[in-house]
């Protein structure tokens, strides 16, 4: 449990808008351990999503280092970072981000294909859909599902490739409190039963308190490094 899977040191990110440099992250240090369900909590605009995108290899940092399970996310070449992302990281977004032209099953299938694990995917996809409780809606298009169901599909899509880490960006931001609790419960089950490492970004203190460890963020800095509320 104490093996580090995410290590962030001195991470900064500046956005340049015209001639003005706007700092979004001001020297972040952070560690998450394997099998942990951690959260980063903070107000809108504090840099949470920027942090998550850099961890996920989708955004370049200005300075600092990010190691994910021994892989240098900052120093790696684009192609190998993309490969690493495809195989080892799963993203869940506030807006679900499902591909509307594909049905539920195919949304999961494309994730397997990108990760390179398309062989034998059918059984794995069905199992994952059963796990999140929407196996009976596998042939439906995302827009025909409720928002709670869409987020379940998004979670299943992120997990079907068996990533080392699940990164969730405000995963309950578009859901009512009942559905939010269900999604959190699902995360918890996956964390407990599958040993899935999860790092969740949220502005909701109540949800953050339901995780193993919470990093509080403000103005691009981590204020409290990993208080365990549980």
């Amino acid at each position, binding site marked *: 449990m104490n093996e580090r899977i995410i290590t962030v040191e001195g991470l900064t990110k500046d956005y340049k808008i015209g001639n003005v440099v706007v700092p979004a992250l001001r020297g972040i240090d952070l560690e998450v351990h394997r099998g942990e369900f951690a959260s980063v909590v903070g107000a809108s605009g504090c840099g949470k999503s920027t942090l998550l995108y850099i961890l996920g290899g989708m955004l370049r940092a200005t300075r600092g280092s990010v190691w994910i399970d021994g892989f240098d996310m900052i120093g790696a070449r684009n192609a190998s970072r993309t490969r690493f992302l495809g195989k080892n990281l799963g993203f869940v977004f506030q807006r679900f981000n499902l591909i509307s032209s594909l049905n539920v099953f195919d949304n999961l299938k494309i994730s397997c294909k*990108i990760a390179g694990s398309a062989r034998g995917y059918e059984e794995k996809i069905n199992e994952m859909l059963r796990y999140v409780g929407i196996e009976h809606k596998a042939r439906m298009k995302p827009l025909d599902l409720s928002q709670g169901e869409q987020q379940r599909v998004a979670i299943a899509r992120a997990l079907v490739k068996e990533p080392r880490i699940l990164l969730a960006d405000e995963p309950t931001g578009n859901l009512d409190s009942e559905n939010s609790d269900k999604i959190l419960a699902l995360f918890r089950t996956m964390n407990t039963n599958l040993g899935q490492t999860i790092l969740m970004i949220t502005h909701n203190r109540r949800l953050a308190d339901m995780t193993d460890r919470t990093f509080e963020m403000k103005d691009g800095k981590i204020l409290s490094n990993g208080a365990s509320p549980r």
Partner: protein
Amino acid sequence: MNLAVANILQHKIRSLICILAVCLGITLLLILVGMVNGSINEVAKRIQNVGGDMIVQQAGATSFFALKSGVLPMKLLEAIREIPRVQAVSPVLTWTVTFRNQFYVVYGIEPRQFSSIGGELKIIQGRHLQNAGELVIDSRMAAATGISVGETIDLLASKFTVVGIAKEGIGARIFLLLTELQSLLQQQDKVSMFFVKSTSPQYIKEVAEDIEERVKGVKCQLLENFADEMTRSMVGLKEFMAAVTVTTLAISFLVILLAMYTTIMERTREIGILKSMGASNLFVVKSILSESTLLSIGGVITGYLLTFSAKYYLNRIYPLLTVEITFYWVLVGTFLGIAAGILGAFYPALIAARQDPVRALNYE
């Protein structure tokens, strides 16, 4: 379902427009080229079917001898006959007429000599030419005009009785006696060409060389590769074919480019999603190109359906028009249609691949 197929089905109107663009390009190409090749080859085949080994023409004449009438003196007939290994000679005077708004080539022939070179007209109704004031038409003209044996028609400001209908495919569509055509055109003792048959195929070249050497002011056109010669002698034909081909490619390319560019803009978020899942640039490019390739294949297939339907209806409306669609041009059409689709989608695919995933995900 594959992402490319899903996107095609999701954007049905756009997909339909792309398919239609490629389809029209292919149809335009195959029909225009088919009409040109069909007309040339059909005429060339009819001339080859006359049965000789060569045509003796005025030196410097093109293969389109029908455009020039009596240019050679009839007395050359004897001079050619005397050349060793010449088996038979048939003089022909050609003329062009317009009948019921259609353009026809008329052959003035001497029936016995015409038969001697092997191109005997197969009369399927009525009889052969015997007297002045008679003519024979071919079965295709008969079908197109509805003229039957015994009818009288006006031609060259004279009245003619149709005495026979010959099987199509030999020489011209209208035949009358050589002497009569010479008289009507006031070109007594003049002919357009001589069909010549040698005693054996192995002497054809030798005979042709002998004729050109001994008879001044003529050239021999071998019938073996007559279609190629006709094509070569048509000034601007190659350029016309090239223009049609480039137009086809351009139409398909531009429509696919526009459609795929628009769709990339529409699907910015989707591309962001793919990238957030770890899709490489190559994966994104392949996904866009597979979509355009499928659309192009759809366009090519519907293009063939439209082409063959158009060919069928053109033949019904214009029975004398020959549209020849060859396997070579089908291959060219397939290649151009698919190439245009891939080229048209290539730039949009590169734009898609270069999109910043975070911006793309937040695109509204």
